[in-house]
């Protein structure tokens, strides 16, 4: 087993970076350079962790880097970190999102504060993904709202205040259910083990026995909190406004990363801790996911601006993830975990390109664009790669994950899978149509003079394209790392369904 200091470093480093960035705020550009440096270091660190990670540490059930320190026994508060295949991908994604959104979404208004908030957000997201204690996860999860709120309300577009408030209230309200659910589980455990101190450790929570009805209630409470974050239809209504109003870096953080907190939480805490209930509510959540896929696809067709377009297509993609998570098969869950990462990467690509277009034309309305292919062929090409990956073209990353999800779901719930497959078709429709409207046709007026992607912009998008292709043709090393953890999780669910 490796030292947990690696994980603690991942959390602490961005915080230190934020402090340094604020300390050097008087020097122009210094804060930005500090942030980019920290971002690069963070990416390197996560890659080291990814290489070091061993899925077969004895008695750790696929976890590595474990360590637990009780902070306050009466409160049941502990600092407890661990990493398994599920968290591993998310941790890498977190670092990548930070670096790429800094490089591609630079915002020079009050920059030191902006990069500090981004760094703080990264630290908290890292904390959420490596937390191995339910209460600790909640604290990190809840805290991510604060930097998000300030990023949106401080640097967003015209309606930023309303968007930020809506986002905050939505998640804050939904997470009330989560906190009460967590407390309920903790005290259920304590009442069963009167001699033990109050604890919210993941292992203890998993060992809590409860009646089936209670488990279903808890599952619903968890699903509300995570469903609002993911988002799952019908709890998605905050996302189009928020994505559209947030600054580029904020949109990337929200859709590529923080949405994954929702699906990660659903998988890790709802499915992982309440396998029995998962079996019972599965048909309902699967139905919601299928509705989300179709609903998101239809609205993506009619979205008027590019950010809302990505918001709705994300809803469809996130619903695919929910479908895989709830499928109850190893293949489906593996696909979902992979899609969480792939969708993150693809969305970074989309929002970066939208941000670049916004810089040039000061607009994100689809109607304002036409024929950009002529003046900006490289940009069009890069958009095409992200688009094709999102559609699920074989050979690109989206294909592997969507394919696994559909197959996995088909083995357990064939009908849902069949309807969801329509979503793949629909994604081709809305993506290609959007591409046509923006890049095809004749470029007139301001569109004719749009400059192509600069060298800097190309370099920012290069890792995105590389990852899309790499994970499309050679996903095996990544799959090898997630499968053992997924298998442990799904076995629980399978055992539960046998018991039932």
């Amino acid at each position, binding site marked *: 087993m490796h030292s947990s200091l690696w994980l603690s470093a991942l959390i602490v480093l961005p915080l230190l970076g934020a402090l340094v960035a604020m300390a050097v705020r008087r020097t122009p550009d210094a804060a930005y350079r500090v942030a980019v440096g920290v971002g690069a270091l963070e990416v390197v660190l996560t890659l080291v962790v990814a290489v070091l990670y061993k899925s077969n540490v004895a008695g750790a059930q696929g976890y590595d880097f474990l360590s637990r320190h009780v*902070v306050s026994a009466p409160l049941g508060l502990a600092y407890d970190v661990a990493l398994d295949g599920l968290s591993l991908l998310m941790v890498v994604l977190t670092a990548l999102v930070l670096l790429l959104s800094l490089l591609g979404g630079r915002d020079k208004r009050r920059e030191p504060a902006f990069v500090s908030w981004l760094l703080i957000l990264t630290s908290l997201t890292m904390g959420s993904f490596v937390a191995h204690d339910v209460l600790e996860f909640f*604290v990190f999860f809840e805290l991510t709202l604060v930097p998000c709120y300030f990023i949106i309300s401080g640097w967003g577009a015209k309606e930023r205040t309303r968007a930020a408030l809506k986002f905050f*209230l939505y998640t804050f309200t939904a997470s009330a259910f989560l*906190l009460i659910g967590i407390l*309920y589980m903790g*005290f259920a455990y304590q009442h069963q083990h009167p001699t033990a101190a109050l604890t919210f450790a993941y292992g203890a929570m998993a060992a809590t026995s409860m009646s089936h009805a209670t488990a279903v209630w808890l599952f619903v409470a968890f699903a509300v909190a995570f469903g609002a974050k993911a988002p799952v239809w019908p709890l998605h209504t905050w996302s189009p406004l928020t994505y559209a109003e947030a600054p580029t870096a904020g949109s990337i953080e929200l859709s590529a990363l923080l949405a994954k907190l929702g699906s990660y939480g659903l998988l890790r805490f709802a499915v992982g801790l309440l396998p029995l209930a998962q079996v019972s509510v599965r048909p309902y959540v699967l139905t919601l996911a299928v509705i989300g896929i179709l609903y998101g696809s239809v609205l993506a067709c009619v979205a008027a601006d590019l950010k809302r377009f990505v918001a709705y297509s994300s809803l469809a993609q996130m619903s695919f993830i929910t479908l895989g998570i709830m499928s109850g098969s190893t293949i489906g869950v593996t696909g979902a975990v992979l899609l969480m990462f792939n969708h993150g990467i693809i969305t970074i690509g989309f929002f970066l390109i939208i941000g670049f277009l916004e810089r040039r034309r000061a607009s994100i309305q689809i109607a304002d664009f036409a024929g950009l292919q002529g003046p900006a062929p490289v940009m069009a090409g890069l958009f095409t790669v992200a688009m094709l990956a999102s559609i699920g073209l074989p050979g690109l990353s989206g294909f592997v994950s969507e394919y696994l999800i559909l197959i996995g779901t088909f083995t357990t719930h064939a009908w849902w899978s069949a309807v969801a497959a329509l979503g793949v078709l629909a994604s081709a429709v809305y993506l290609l149509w959007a591409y046509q409207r923006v890049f095809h046709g004749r470029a007139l007026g301001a569109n004719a003079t749009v400059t192509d992607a600069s060298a800097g912009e190309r370099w920012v998008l290069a890792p995105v394209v590389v990852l899309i292709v790499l994970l499309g043709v050679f996903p095996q090393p990544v799959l090898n790392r997630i499968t053992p953890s997924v298998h442990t999780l799904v076995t629980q669910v399978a055992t539960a369904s046998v018991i039932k």
Partner: protein
Amino acid sequence: MNTVTIPSIHYLTILPVLLYFGAALVLLITSALWRRTVPMLFSTSVTVLTSVAVLVTTYFQWRGLDHAGASTTVAHAVVLDGFSVVASAVIAVSVGLAALVAHDWAVRENVRGPEYQILAMAASAGALLMTQANDLIVIFLGLEILSLGLYVLVALDRRKTESAEASLKYFVLGGFASAIFIYGAALLYGATGSTNLSTISYFLGSNVVLRPGLLVAGGALLLIGFAFKVAAVPFHMWSPDVYEGAPTPVTGFMASIVKVGAFAALVRVLISGLGTQLDTWRPILWVLVVLTTVVGAALALPQRNAKRLLAYSSINHAGFILIGVWAGTARGSAALLFYLMTYAPTVVATFAVLTVMGGLGDERHSLESYRGLARRQPWLGAALAVLLLSQLGAPLTAGFYAKYSVLAAAVDAGGSLLALIALLSAAIAASFYLRWTVVLYAEPDDELDAVRVVVPRATAIVIGAGVVLTLLFGVWPGPLVTLAQHATVYFLP
């Protein structure tokens, strides 16, 4: 031949009360003998030093508890236990901080004279008495001493009619509540044969009350009296007007000290005295909590005046603190104490910022006047933002653990639904705290209107202390939580 037997008195037990009373008297007499007005510096120093002395006394009381455990004195009417000691310490800290704010306010407003400090110390003596009372009569005494001081304090700004109006309103309604309280005490005496909480508890534990009408009526009236003092819905009507009309430092004093005193006494009456009747009063409190949290948060939404908004926010907080009482367990009482420990300094510091922002005449309290504050004065703006986030219950501030611990106590006692409703009300409350925070960081509309406010040194210390405590215990709540838990272990049964 009638003889009056004087009960034995353990002076260390009532030393905090005596200190405040004594200091108030000394200051009163000095101000009468002094040729001119007593210098402000002198009267403020007396209050601050007395508060420090009380704090030191509570330390020795706490040390004594380790050896001797909880005890009573003055014919079992006054208690010395962990709960009272910690609550007294919280009061002492709040009085000291509030005195500093009031000092700067009085200098600015040119309200020279020791009145504030005398009245504040006398009122605090009443609050301390409430935390230590083990007898309904003593609670009533404490309540009246506290309230009488406050009635005058609220009217301290003689040049403003709102101040007098608020005082009158508070006085009339407060008198009414006191009458209800003492009537409840009388009925309870009728039902149980004693006003002493230990005796009441013993009586109820060893007898079956066949016709509990008198008992229930007495308990209900007591509860109404308390609900009025802590401004629980539907007995909250006075609080926005009084909070708004009173001079801002007085509002801060009220918001912290009254809550500590009243809640400490409420815990003692319900848990220590009427603990056997848990099943009767719990449903009533349940409704009270739901109303107080939800109505408090909802009515705060349309407010445009910072003081009124904080009045409703403090109603919401009162609802949360009541949850600790509702739980009826040691965990609940500890959580309540922890809530008070973190809430009192936060709210004093928040009103310190409001006092500063109020400007000459104490009148600029519209939320609009806060626009762009954090841009003009980053430290003051950030301090207010932290204090607001703590009241919102954001993690890494003490307010989060305060809310967390009462909710945990509720869930532990089987009140998951109650906890959920309260937490959803916190989500409503979050929207107005956040709106205010955003205003702080917004672009100022009109540069001409945006004046930099002067933060006097003493007030700056108070604001700084509030922020530091909020963040320190937000990151490291362990010691305070343990203290609250130990305090409840020493609770007099």
